């Protein structure tokens, strides 16, 4: 297991956002967390990357406890977070945004290779390298956000709602690239409202409702599950 989340509680003030959530991501796999708005999916990602404190339970990465560490230390260990809503530095160019992602590394051969790999995943970014990130289309911004996260050379990538606000075709493109990234030995934890998209590319999935895991299993089985179908797939 590359990531193990055990009995985690997260409270915002007195309100419990996440209650006793446990799940794990095995090395080299894609795991989807699905659920409606407010189910606590984004909160879980923020807690893993150290942006929100965890009130109970334990999060371990490669067998080592990481809850309580600062976001910087967690990035250094190899977890990279693509926050919700394609968050970029809008005034910076595409190239500058990407280089910010490699902040903790020395610029040199390795980072150049990673940059080349990102341009292979997203050829359009190479043409846009000098353009301000804020002027790109939604899909291109999502590509920059994912690219920036990859520039820290992560072992685990946390993706928060990568398909939000994108056209179905663009969502499919992003989904395909997530698979390609995964084939390069990057484990992925994917949070999505679009359960169909998430479960199609994931190996396993967890369904969250009001802060708790209510269902878990193989992604293919979840896609066929009657409860999931009616609640999240609109079938």
């Amino acid at each position, binding site marked *: 297991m590359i990531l193990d989340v055990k009995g985690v509680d997260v409270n915002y003030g007195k309100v419990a956002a996440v209650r006793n959530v446990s799940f794990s991501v095995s090395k080299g796999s894609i795991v989807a967390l699905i659920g409606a708005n407010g189910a606590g999916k984004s909160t879980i990602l923020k807690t893993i990357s150290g942006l929100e404190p965890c009130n109970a339970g334990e999060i371990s990465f490669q067998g080592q406890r990481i809850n309580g560490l600062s*976001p910087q230390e967690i*990035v250094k260990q190899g977890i990279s977070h693509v*926050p919700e809503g394609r*968050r970029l*530095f*809008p*005034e910076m160019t595409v190239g500058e945004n990407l*280089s910010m992602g490699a*902040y903790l590394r020395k610029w040199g051969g390795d980072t150049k290779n990673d940059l080349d790999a990102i341009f292979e995943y997203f050829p359009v970014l190479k043409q846009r390298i000098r353009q301000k990130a804020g*002027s790109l289309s939604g899909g291109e911004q999502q590509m920059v956000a994912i690219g920036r996260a990859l520039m820290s050379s992560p072992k685990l990538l946390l993706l928060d709602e990568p398909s939000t606000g994108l056209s179905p075709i663009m969502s499919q493109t992003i989904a395909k690239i997530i698979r390609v990234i995964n084939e390069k030995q990057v484990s992925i934890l994917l949070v999505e409202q679009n359960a169909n998209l998430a479960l199609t590319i994931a190996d396993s999935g967890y369904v969250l409702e009001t802060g708790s895991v209510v269902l878990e299993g193989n992604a293919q089985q979840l896609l066929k599950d009657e409860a999931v179908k009616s609640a999240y797939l609109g079938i």
Partner: protein
Amino acid sequence: MPKKIGIEAILIILALVVLVTMPWLTQETYVFHILCLIGINIIFAASLNAILNIGELNLAQSAFMGIGAYASTLLVTRVGLSFWFALPLAALITAVISLLIGLLTLRFRGAYFLLFTFLFAELIRILLSNFGISVFGGIPGLTNIPRPSIELGSLIKISFDSKIEFYYLILLITLGSIAILSRIDRSRTGMIFWAISQSESLTESIGIDSMKFKILGVAIGCFFAGVAGSLYAHFVGIITPTDFAVHSVLAPIAYVVVGGMGTVFGPVIGTTFLMVLSHFFLRELGFYELLVYGLIIVGIIRFMPEGLISIPNFIFSRFPEASGSGK
């Protein structure tokens, strides 16, 4: 970051030639007096801008200039140091004090940071006016602050008594300060300051300790406020607590905004433009001076929200390249 254009380099060289040959153009004492004040204000406006770069407005910036001024004066008159050691030491003292203040206040953002720094500015003014009067001189402040001089052996002695000599000293230190700030701006650290001002939470999630960089940004800004303070004290010769009260930060804010926030040369252009305007051209208007001055500032902000430094873009945008404009 602004793109480098050939025209920019030519303009800078032209400005330098004019500045260096100034004494051959005029001998008027008033002109050199104002030019010296412009230099000091440029350093101060640039120091204010250095903190704006991390997305915060420091209302205590004049108070830090005051700390630099009092520290430099006391180092010369009480400790007996020469000006050449007192200036960097005073700037360093200012930066160290700002580190402590930064640790306390940078947890607050926006309006809270503004209020906290406002309080700090008042605190410094009240302390300097009422405490340690034998050292700080109380409300009348400190007078007879000596001008610097260089003595190398018994042969060479340059004293900076005349305005023209002091002008060259200030010119040199101003150019040095701008060069250092511009170097920082183009460094990785400058890039991170810029990132923090755009989105602090995103900077954090990339794995950057934004607090550390914000404190560094404040310390850099206050270091140069200290430089400006030391120069001011030894140039004017008299300092009082009200010179550095909170209202004295307002005009420099206008310099920064009119010139162009977040750029190294914006504060330089803004300070020069507005100070030349008010000291050489608007003086004749008497009663209407401030009215016209205010209208010009409002006009620039209305029609050039990115400041005078955006004039080239203004012109070049008629020949658009591939570059897109942000939303």
